[in-house]
């Protein structure tokens, strides 16, 4: 299954997002953001679902994020 990446603004928001998604039964992992997706170091959510669906959930719950990259 191809994995998409959603770059997060901090490790705290990454874990907050992971907790939220896991509680909704959505599997995700926290990975290091690749250089081409970030201006500095940071963390991303690695997800198998459509990243736009995930971003909608994040935004509904006030969790900021940066750019995303489809897998």
């Amino acid at each position: 299954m191809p994995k998409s990446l959603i770059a997060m603004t901090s490790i705290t928001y990454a874990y907050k997002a992971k907790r939220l998604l896991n509680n909704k039964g959505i599997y995700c992992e926290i990975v290091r953001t690749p250089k081409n997706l970030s201006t500095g170091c940071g963390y991303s959510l690695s997800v198998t679902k459509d990243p736009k669906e995930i971003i909608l959930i994040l935004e509904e719950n006030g969790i900021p994020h940066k750019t995303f990259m489809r897998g």
Partner: protein
Amino acid sequence: MINFDNSATTFPKPQSVKNAVALAVERFGGNPGRSGHEISKAAAEQVFNVREKAARLFHAEVENVAFTANCTYALNMAIKGILQYGGHTVISSLEHNSASRPVYNLYKNRGVKYSIAKVEPDDEQTVRNFEELINADTKCIICTAASNVTGQITPYRELARLAQKKGIAFICDCAQASGVLDITLDDGMDFICTSGHKGLYGPTGTGLLITNGKFPLSTIIEGGTGTTSAELTQSDTMPERLESGTVNTVGIMGLGKGIDFVNTKTQARIFAHETALCEQMLNALRKHRNITVYRDDNAHYAPIVAFNIGEYSSEEVTEYLNRRGFALRGGLQCSALAHHSLGTLLTGVVRFSPSAFNDRRQVAMLIHEIEKIAAGNVI
């Protein structure tokens, strides 16, 4: 040795705290939030878990919980974060030096103005004292929730409402309140600054700055946050903005178990237990004419008892008690303003502060020694 100096730091700690500290050193030694490898991420997840627990305890969003080295660091970050570019503040007459000294430093070096509002036994009068001192330049109210000298509880909810009405920030020192008074952001404060190692039973070297996010803070410490590393500007993302450098994973994991301990016992039950021990002390102390107890019948108190015996200095009393196996704090308890208010700047006071681990038998043993001092037989 029996510890009745738990306002300084609770000791002993719960076994679960000791176990968590050992586990952190043994298994979670990575640098949290800095790398993508599993060792780093495992530590980061542990830190996040404790952040979540603290957020639940204080009714905060998890990102608005910043770990600090202690309450003093949290207060400095909040006070200087609000006032470092000037303004005026109203502080209470009971403030610990951890609040009054940063304010005084800002006054000396940054042109910040400050006023001191007298805390009275009458809460309504106390609030009026604060309100009268607020002016157009006032940026914040700084007030302890409970005095670390006498335990007097301030009208912090009413002061929070006053700050909201005036559109200014309320910074609340909860070092003596956390773990015994159920204080949360719902009480209206903008900043809860507290220690992790006192009523929350975590290890020393732990503290918390909790905010509702309404007043973004200027930083007083900048550095690595694990985010936006290509930029020279400090990250504005909370809580990393306030957590430059490697956080204290070992202490934080211990603090997590301390919070669990408090949640299991409940703050209400800990308060009731410690207050009963204070009542036992007070009943004994008040039998002696030459013992002065620093309490007012019209005020409310956290479980602390401050007293002096005859003409003895507080340090003479605590030194004798130390030799007899009891740890109590004498002197000024780092609170010049509070002692100025009490009129005890020269003598200090003896402070009795129990924890969840003390019991009536221990207090009875302490009373026996105090009665010997009061009778003039031993010092």
